[in-house]
Structure formats: C-alpha cells, structure tokens
C-alpha cells in the first residue's frame, strides 16, 4: 500500500499542525506512517531532534504497544504518553495507518493538548480521505 499526497493536502496538513498544535507552544510535531516514514514535521526552530530516527522508533514503539494490547484483548491503544523531566511525548493514532507525535515541555497542559490533538486528528483525517492510494 502506497500513498501519494499532493501539494494541497500537505499544505492543509501543515496548516492544521501549525495552527492547532505548534501555536500552543509545542516544540515539535511529526506526522508519520506506521512504517516509520515522515509525512510532515514542524518544530519551533530551537530543537534539532533527529526526526527520522524518532519516527522509526515511534512507529516501532506503537507497534509493540499494539501487540501488548492484543494480548490483553484490546485492538490497540490509540494514544500513548511518555513523561520526562522537561520534555514529554504524546502519540496519537490518525486513521489506521498514521501516527501524530507531539513533543512539548511542562509549560503546555496535557489536557488541553489532548483536546487540540483530537481536533487536529479529525481535520487531518478529512484531508487523508481524499488521498490517492496506489
């Protein structure tokens, strides 16, 4: 299964990520597929994370957690959250094949972030509905 995202779709996705998420004060937002490929990534210009490795690990991590979910009788866990001392990572599934990864500091409220992530996901899902599958 391969996808082609056109310019308009990518612009739309980046606009959602910027306005709904980055403008909250996040450090980095990455939209990836479950194979670990990056579809879009934005950062605040101050972090220089190795996003390609991060994407590969995030997809692997999500896959591992889904396998755990299957063992206890769940289809998957649609969101994951890792809390660090200064940095936190939140993962949320978008449709069946994509994952939204957000990295943020302690100045951003997790509850508000989750609300905004949900909003962004429904907007991004609409954009993906028109994606050409090849």
């Amino acid at each position, binding site marked *: 299964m391969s996808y082609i*995202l056109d310019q308009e779709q990518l612009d739309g996705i980046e606009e959602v990520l910027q306005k709904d998420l980055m403008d909250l004060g996040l450090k980095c937002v990455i939209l990836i*597929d479950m*194979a670990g*490929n990056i*579809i879009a990534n934005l950062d605040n210009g101050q972090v220089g994370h190795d996003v390609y*490795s991060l994407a*590969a690990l995030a997809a692997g991590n999500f896959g591992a957690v889904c396998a755990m979910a299957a063992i206890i009788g769940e289809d998957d866990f649609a969101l994951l959250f890792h809390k660090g001392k200064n940095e936190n990572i939140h993962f949320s599934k978008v449709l069946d094949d994509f994952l939204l990864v957000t990295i943020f500091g302690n100045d951003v409220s997790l509850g508000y972030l989750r609300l905004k992530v949900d909003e962004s996901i429904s907007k991004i899902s609409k954009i993906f509905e028109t994606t050409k599958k090849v």
Partner: protein
Amino acid sequence: MAVINIRKKEVQVKIVYVGPGRGGKTTNLEYLFGAVRHRIQSDMVSIKTHGDRTLFFDFLPFDLGQIQGYMVKTQLYTVPGQVKYNATRKLVLKGVDGVVFVADSMEVMRDKNIASLENLKENLAFYDLDLYNKFPIVMQYNKRDLAEQGVPILTIETLEQDLNSKLKAPYFEASALSGHNVIATVKKAITMTVVSLQDHFT
C-alpha cells in the same frame, strides 16, 4: 509503503535486512554506518539485548542524493533473526520496499537459512507482498572469509540451489566484518528498490 512527498520533492525508501540469527545483518549496518557517518547527521539506532543481539531493530537513515529531481532518503532496518522474535520481525517489515537477505555461509546454518527465507515469504504475504513476484531482493552470502580459518562453509552452488533457484535474485559473496561487498550489496538493493518504485508509480 514508500512515501513520496511531492511538496518537499522527497522519496523515503525502506530497505530491510533479513536472515537467520547471528548471520551478520547488524554487522552489515555497522560497517555501512562507519563508512557513511562522516556525511550523515543521524546516528545508527539499535535496540538490542545485553548480549548484543538485536531485540527489535537497527535503523540507519541516509540521503542518497537526487534522482530525477527527488531527494531519496534511504532507511535501512534490520530485524531480529531468532525464530522466536517473529512478531517484531513482522512489525519491522511493515511498509518494506526492498530486502537484503543475509545468508550465513556456515554449513551448520543451512537449514536456518532456508527457514528464514520461508519465514520472510510468509511475513511479506501478511502485507500482500509476493516474494516471488518481482519483489526487489538481493542475496548476500555472508561470512565467506570463514573458509580461510578452516570453518566448513557451504559452496555458492549449494546456497544458490537452496535459496535462490526460484528467486534468481542478484547475489554477492561477502564478509560483513571486513566489509567485503557490503557496499556493493546495499547499492544493488537500493537500485533495485528505486527501479521497482519507478515501475510501480509509472
């Protein structure tokens, strides 16, 4: 599932090293990392056990430069070779665009090579990919250098008969530890994968 980003003019290609446990998949990537580390920004990522066996995967991303105006980003993965880790192996194979099969030339590994290739076929079928229908794969017969140390190794004819009689994939005799044919293998795998993507999308 290759990602072609028209906006960034970027193609992301996933190539996975597969083969029996302790066959040299990680060593291939380590050698490549040593060869390209001066021109890539990323580190090689390894999720391994304390005994240095690959537990989940190794990951090495690097840019290939431009092909027809598109920046090609290659992502090399290895899978754990041990039979018991099939769940993680299957997970890493998700979205694979091309495979390098690293066979262990030691005589004692003959059955494990065959079982590993069979397992690859099954795992690809899980993602609706047919190993025997134009799937980009390169065979690497690793550890050829062991013959010099008196270790009994399989002949190329035997390896070809066991693993490649139906596939007819290009093969390389290699030594991942010394680096012999490691780069040639990855170059061939990348070329075949990119050509297969071109065929797929045109």
